[in-house]
């Protein structure tokens, strides 16, 4: 009944940013352009880590994604107190460290201590642990994938995920959250999320009171109904009995 009643307000959202958040990331082995072979935990135990998933044969989102990320980090107002490293990791197991070196050079990151370019043969394990699902398209010889940033804290937990090209404010929030600064967040309604208190329009930012909120009023209304029904029933009896003028304690 509840499901049927509230079906009307269900919207089709796909917030993959919510999956695997606060879960442990797989501690895979990576080959880096600067320090050779390392475990992922070697990196995140030093400082919070942002993983950007790309591959060098990519003719789609990867390059604009990196360019945008580079620019947004510089615009995000990060100060020296905020520690972070960006791990640009290829999820294509055919990529070599040399390919990643060329990619780093293209963005002038070869000598930037905040940026690490790496490959891994354990991409599937990592992808699964962070909820990243690239699909190989054999006809185009390309991966169909989202532009994904994953924030990992110093204990190896996924703290935040950002999908798509994001503005400097979003990047700033990611960096702050990774550095332990409180960032307000709230669970967004999913496909199965019924009876919300409010419906939210992401395009306009408009928030409207919704069916769920009526449930807050319902118990009080029902209790009054119960009391009034009892009072009506009893009122008939009271009409025929003496009204107490004072109470008689025993």
């Amino acid at each position, binding site marked *: 009944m*509840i*499901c049927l009643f509230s079906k009307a307000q269900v919207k089709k959202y796909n917030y993959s940013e919510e999956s695997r958040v606060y879960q442990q990331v797989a501690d895979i082995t990576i080959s880096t352009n600067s320090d050779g072979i390392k475990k992922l935990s070697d990196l995140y135990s030093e400082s919070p880590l942002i993983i950007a998933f790309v591959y060098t044969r990519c003719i789609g989102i990867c390059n604009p994604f990196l360019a945008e990320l580079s620019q947004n980090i510089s615009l995000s107002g990060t100060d020296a107190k905020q520690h972070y490293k960006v791990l640009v990791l290829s999820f294509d197991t055919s990529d070599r460290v040399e390919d990643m070196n060329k990619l780093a050079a293209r963005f002038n990151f070869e000598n930037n201590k905040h940026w690490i370019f790496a490959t891994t043969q354990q991409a599937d394990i990592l992808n699964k642990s962070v909820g990243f699902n690239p699909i190989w398209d054999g006809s185009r010889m390309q991966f169909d994938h989202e532009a994904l940033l994953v924030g990992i804290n110093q204990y190896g937990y996924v703290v935040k995920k950002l999908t798509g090209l994001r503005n400097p404010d979003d990047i700033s929030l990611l960096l702050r959250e990774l550095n332990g600064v409180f960032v*307000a967040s*709230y*669970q967004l*309604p*999913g496909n*199965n*999320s*019924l*009876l*919300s*208190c*409010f419906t939210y329009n992401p395009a306009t930012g408009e*928030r409207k009171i919704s069916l*769920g*909120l009526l*449930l*807050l009023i*319902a*118990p*009080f209304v*029902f*209790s*009054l109904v*119960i*009391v*009034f029904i*009892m*009072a009506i029933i*009893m*009122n008939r*009896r*009271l009409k025929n009995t003496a*009204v*107490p*003028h*004072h*109470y*008689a*304690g*025993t």
Partner: protein
Amino acid sequence: MNNILKLKKITSAWILAILLLFVLAISFGITMRFNQANDIKLSPVTFYSLMTTHGVTMVGIWVVAGMMAVNYLLSRYVKVSNGLNLFAMALTVIGVVMLWLTTFVGHYHTGWTFLYPLPFYTAWEKWATPVFLLSLGVLGIGWFVWSVGMLWQILKRYSLPQAFAWQHFKKGHTVETPPFILITTVTLVGVIACLLTAVLLLILYFAEYFSKGTFTNDALLMKNLTYFFGHTIINEALYLGVATLYELLPEVSGRPKFKMTWYVAVAWNCTLLFVLTAFFHHLYMDFAQPQSFQIIGQVASYFASLPSASVTAFSVIVLIYKNPVKWSLTNLLFVVGVAGWLIGGIGAVIDATISNNFVLHNTLWVPAHFHTYNAMGNVLFSLAFFNWAAKDFQGIASPLRYDKTKIFWLMVGGFGFVLMFYIGGAYSIPRRYAEYPNEFTNAKLLASAGAWFAIIYLWAIIVILFNIVMKCIKMFSVSE
């Protein structure tokens, strides 16, 4: 067996069960404070299981203590049902056994608030989540039926406007509503509303539990419903205690009974409305909640507590100030209880003010204020009733000789215990930590001091209880 004798025996059984659970639940609390002090070492799971048991048990026993007390005193005005009384007791026993099984055998440890979606993140036996929710359902059904039954009996004798004392709003009325009847009616309506909220909450939890992922609840709605139920029921429990105060304090003090006045009627009618919306102050940190609700939360917090508390305090002062009062343990407990209620209430209003809540939210200030108006307020109202009832069962008064000493140590222990919480809150020490990191320099010392003060409180309680328990046990051997 006549009805009155039966009522006395059932009430004796209630008192014994409540006192046993009370002593055990205090012991759990002391154990937790010693663990926070690092004086003993509990696993985090054991700590949070104890915290859950302590919270739900304390809330539960003082709700039923209040209901049992008003049920007993209602028999002065209307016929009360012993069958419903027994039914509520049976479901309460079953509910408590289920609850303790989930926490001690199933290691369930969400805290009494069981905030969504925590119950579904099973870090305990899988069966513990549904059994915990079911235990709340069993308790809720028993209390709901009992509340409706009591209200039914009140409305058999008083019309609805009379039960709410609306005739006192104007001059020239011929019917007087006893304050006890007004407060009981107002409170029972509130109890029914929050128990219905609990039913709704449990339906939503079980809908998600059995949906296998096809139905997800809204976190904000669930939090609103949880605090509607939880915050309201503990406040209503307090008001049930206040109802017994209005009925018994003048009587045991040898003073005329409280008369209904227009301002008492207005105050308690306001309380009915405002106490049901005050819970919004628990959601100040939930920025998704509209600002208007936050403002309602602050305003309702003031209006729910101030009229009833000030009218009661005024009435008690008028009753005892420069008047010959027959002091006994019962009225001493009532008067100290009013002080505890007021101090805790002021602490609550400070925390319910939005600008203060930014500093005090989820610090030890929160347990400070609710322990004050419960441990040093509502508990004392109920103990006063127990003491009076034990005497009423057998007509034998206890000597006053050591009563003032008992009260003195009760106050030292109780107020010392809550003072450690208040100081912790002022230092922004967070609550619900099993262990405090070294950064909170005063936390361990305060926890240790709090635990020792609580031991003094427990000792005073046990001394006070001794006579009550003996009289209640003897009650079972009384026959017609």
